[in-house]
C-alpha cells in the first residue's frame, strides 16, 4: 500500500521544531498513540491502539530512523504487530522551508498483513492519509494558537507542554494522559496505524530539526 501526502505547518521552522521536539506532545497528538519510548538516538518503541467495530487491537512496534540527509530528507522504518495483524512501513520524508512556514511531504509504502491485510485494503490508504492529515492539522492548530498547547494541567514557562511522564515509568517513557472522550481512532486499524506512523514522522521531523538547531 502506498500513501503520499503533504502538510504545511504555519510556523517558522524553529517553532515547528519546538512543538514537535517533545515526545510528550506527540504522544497526545498521534492518533491512538498510548505510549512512546525513546530507546536510542534514532529509535523508539510505541504502542498504538486503533480499530473499528470488530477489528480493533493494540499494536506494539519499533520505529527506526535512517538515511538521514539533514535538513532535507530521511527515511523512517516502522514495524508493529498486534491482534489484527502486522504493519510494516517505510516513510520517506522531505522538508523545505517556504515563506516562513515549513512544508513536509511524505511517501509511505506499507505492508499490511494478517486479518486487515485481506479485508478492506482498498480503504486503508484513505484512512492512513486522513489520519496523517488530522495529526498535522492538530499540530498546526497548536502552533497557530487555535488549540491549547496542553490540556491545562501544567505548562512550562515558554508555554510549551509539560512532559506527561507516567509516575512509575522510566525516564524517556511517555504515556498519553487520560482524556475524557479520547476515542480509539475510527477507521480500519491498519490504516490508522499507518496514519499514526506517518504522524510519528512528525516526531522525527522535530528530532531532526532539533539536532540541526543545537
Amino acid at each position, binding site marked *: *500500500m502506498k500513501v503520499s501526502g503533504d502538510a504545511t505547518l504555519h510556523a517558522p521552522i524553529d517553532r515547528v521544531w519546538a512543538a514537535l521536539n517533545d515526545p510528550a506532545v506527540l504522544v497526545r497528538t498521534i492518533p491512538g498513540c498510548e505510549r512512546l519510548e525513546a530507546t536510542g538516538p534514532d529509535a523508539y518503541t510505541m504502542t498504538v491502539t486503533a480499530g473499528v467495530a470488530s477489528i480493533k*487491537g493494540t499494536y506494539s512496534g519499533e520505529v527506526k530512523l535512517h538515511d538521514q540527509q539533514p535538513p532535507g530528507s530521511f527515511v523512517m522504518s516502522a514495524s508493529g*504487530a498486534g*491482534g489484527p*495483524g*502486522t504493519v*510494516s512501513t517505510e516513510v520517506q520524508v522531505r522538508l523545505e522551508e517556504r515563506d516562513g512556514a515549513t512544508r513536509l511531504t511524505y511517501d509511505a509504502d506499507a*505492508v*499490511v*498483513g*494478517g*486479518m486487515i*491485510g*485481506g*479485508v*478492506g*485494503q*482498498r480503504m486503508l490508504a484513505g484512512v492512513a492519509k486522513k489520519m496523517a492529515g488530522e495529526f498535522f492539522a492538530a499540530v498546526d492548530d497548536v502552533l497557530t494558537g487555535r488549540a491549547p498547547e496542553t490540556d491545562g494541567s501544567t505548562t512550562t514557562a515558554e508555554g510549551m507542554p509539560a512532559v506527561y511522564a507516567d509516575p512509575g515509568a522510566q525516564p524517556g517513557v511517555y504515556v498519553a494522559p487520560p482524556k475524557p472522550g479520547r476515542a480509539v481512532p475510527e477507521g480500519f486499524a491498519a490504516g490508522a496505524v499507518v496514519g499514526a506512523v506517518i504522524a510519528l514522522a512528525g516526531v522525527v521531523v522535530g528530532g531532526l530539526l532539533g539536532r540541526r538547531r543545537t
Partner: protein
Amino acid sequence: MTKMFGEPIKRVEDRRLLLGGGAYLDDLGRDAYAAAVLRSPHAHARVIDIDVTDALDVDGLIAIYTYDDLAGAMAEPLPLLIPHPTLTHGRTQYALARDEVNHVGEAVAVVVARDRYLAEDAAERIAVTYEPLPAVVGIENARAATNLVHDDVPGNVAANTMQEYGDARAAVAAAPNRLSLDLAVERSASTPMETRGVLAEWDADSGRLRMWSSTQTSTGVRAAVAAKLGLDLTDVEVITPDVGGGFGVKIVHPWPEELLVPMAARLLKHPVKFTEDRREHFIASAHERAQLHHVEVGFDDAGRILGLDVRFWHDHGAYIPYGLIVPIVTSTQLLGPYKPGAYRVEFDSLYTNTVIVTPYRGAGRPQGAFVMERTLDAIAGSLGLDRTEVRAANFIQPEEMPYDFGLTFQDGRPLRYDSGDFPASLDKLKKLVGWDEFAAYREQARAEGRRVGIGLACYVEGTGVGPYEGGHVLIETSGKVKVATGLTSQGQGHQTVFAQIVADELGVSMDDVEVVTGDTRRFPYAVGTFASRAAVMSGSAIALAARNVREKALRVAAEALEADPKDLEIVDGMVRVRGNPGAEITLGTVAVLSNPLRYAFDEASKAATQFAVGDPGKPPVAEDDEPGLEGRDYYSPPHATFANGMHAVIVETDPDTAEIRILKYAVVHDCGRLINPRIVEGQIHGGVAQGVGGALYERMAYDEHGQLQNASFMDFLMPYVTEVPRGIDIDHLETPSPLNPLGIKGAGEAGVIPSAAVFAAAIEDAEGIPITSMPISPSALFELRRTHEGQR
C-alpha cells in the same frame, strides 16, 4: 416398470437439504473443544521465536501446539501425494511451520480451547517473532528468480516437463503461415459455500480414532492420518458428512488441520473440532489457474495446424503436495478435439510465496482451452476464415476413434480418446446459438448503436480416471437395498443417480434404495470424488455389484421357485417366473433364504419357511457361497474416458462503460449416456456460473508482498444469479463410452472449462481488440480500449 436410467428424476437429497436437514461438519460435535489456527501474516519469513506466555492466561484454554510439540511422522513434512519423474524439486509444508513460513496463512500454531472465541483470543496473544524475507509473487518474479522461495530450489523451478509428438518446431518453421501468441490466465479458487472442517474423537479404551472431515476423499484422509499418527488403518474411521461443495480444494489431503485435530483429540482424550472461517479459506486453502503461455503455431491456408509449439509457466504456490496434475492436464487437454500435425509442449512449474495451487474444477483445462481456442481464433483472423471452419478443418473425425495422440495423460495412461463426434457437435452448436444468423444480428445492433460479439470454444475432458472405485449392494430382509461406495459426495446428487442405477439393475423401486458415500465403515477402499469420476467410477462399480447381487438373488429364487434362473425376472422387488403368474417371491424373502440362520425373527422369516433352498447333502453355506444377499465389486478402467463439449456466447459490451452483458449462452455437451439429464444440466448450469465468475469477475489480488488483498466476499467478486445467463440453451449428444458397463462419461467439470476462451472470443469479436489475458473486468476492457486507440 419404468426404466430409471436416463430419466430426469428430481434429486432425492434435495428435500432434506433444502429443509435444513443436512448435517455439515460444523453441525456435528457440539461438545467438542474448538481449535483455532494461528497463521502467518507474512508471505515469506523466518520464524525466530514463538512465545505463548501471554496466551496461557486465557481462561478456557486447553492446549497450544507448535512445531516443537510434533513428534515422529507428524514432525516430518506433509506427503507429496503424486510424485512425477520430472518433479525434481518437490517441497511440502510441515503441519505447523518449523523455521520458515512461505505464504500468508501458513499454519504456525494451533490452539485448543473450550470454544472458538477463547481459542482465537488465545491465538491472538501468541507472540511470534518473524524475520521477513523477500516475497516471490507472480509468475514473472518466480521466473526471474531474483529471490528464491526455497533456498535449495534453484530458479524456483520444481519441475520442467516436456511432451512431444512429431517435430513441432520443424513443422512450425516449414509452415506457410505462422503466428506467435502470449496468453495469460490469472488465479482464482474453488470457493465452496462450506469451508473446510474436521472433527475427531479418540476412544482411549479401544485405541480407535473416529473422525469426520469435509473432504473429497475419506479414504485418503484415513490413510494419511493413520500414517502420521502411527495407527493401523482399521483403527481409523473417517466419515464424510454432507459437504457443501468442494470443487477440488477438498481433494487435497491431509490438510494440516486434518492431522492436528485428531492428534489433539488423542492427546486430550476429548473431541476436538476445527471449522475454517472464510478469511482462512481465502488465504490458506488452495487456489488454481495462474499460468503464462507462449504459443508458436504454423498452419496451412485452410487453417489446418501443421505444428504447435507451446511453452508455459505454471504458478503452483509455496509447496507442491499435489504434484504436477494441473500443468499436465493443461499440456495434454489443450489439444481438445483437434489433431495438430505435430505438437510440442513444455512447462515449468514454479514456486511462489502464495498459497498452494491444486486442481479446481476444470483443473488446468480452462487454461488449455483458452490457449488452443485463442490460437484457432487468431488463425481464422489472419486467414480471414470463419472461426467454425478453422475448427472443423482441425477436428479429429468420428471414424478416427479411438484416437491415440502418443502422449501421456495425468493418470500416467495414454492420452487416447475413446469416442466423440465433433463435427456433429459443432453443427448442433451453430444451430443452437444461431451462428450463421449472427452477422445480420450484428448489423441490426450496430444500427441501434449497440456493440455485440459472438464466440465459441470447444474442449475435450478426460473424465473418470482410475485407479478404481468399489460398490457394495445389500438386500435387506425387508426388501430395502443398501448401497455403499467409498467415494464421497460434495453435493452432486449421488444418492439419486446411484439409486437410479441400482433400481434398474435389481428391478426395485428407487424409494427402496438407500445410498451411503464416503464412510470408511461402510466401504473402506476408495479413491475420491474429483476429475469428473464419481458417476463413471462408482456408478460402474455399483452397477457391477448390483449385477452380482441380482445373479445370486435369481439363483436362490430359482431354487425356491423350482425354476430356471433364465426364466426369472425382477419387477418392483418381486422375483417372478415369466409367464407363470403367482410363481413369485419377494427379494426380502430371498434375502432371508440366502442366510441359513435358524431363528425366525419376523414375518419375512416366517414367509421364507414355505420355501426350501440348499442341498441337504451339502453344508448350509456351500463352499463357494456366503450367507446373505449382498455383492461387492470394483471398476478399474484401462484409461480415462473422454467427454467433450462446445460452448458459444453472445455478449454485448457497453460503448461507454465497457460493461459486459451476456445475451445468449449455448452449450452442446457429450458425456456419453446420461443417467439423469436433470442432474447433468444442473452440473452444466453450475459450471457455467462458475465459469462466468472466472472469466469476468474473480481474481486473487495478491500485492507484491504476497498479501491477498481481497480475502473476503466484500472484495472477491462472485457472480450472483443476476450475473449468470438467465437461460442456458443446452443440447446433448450421446456417444457412449466403450470403456465402462454403463457407457457413461463424466460431466462435473464440463460447464467451466471453455469459459475464459469463449468470453475472450466474444469480447474480441465485439471490440475488435485482441483479448489475450483473462479474467477481464469492465475497467480492464476500458483500459484495453484506451491502449488500443493509442496504438492506432
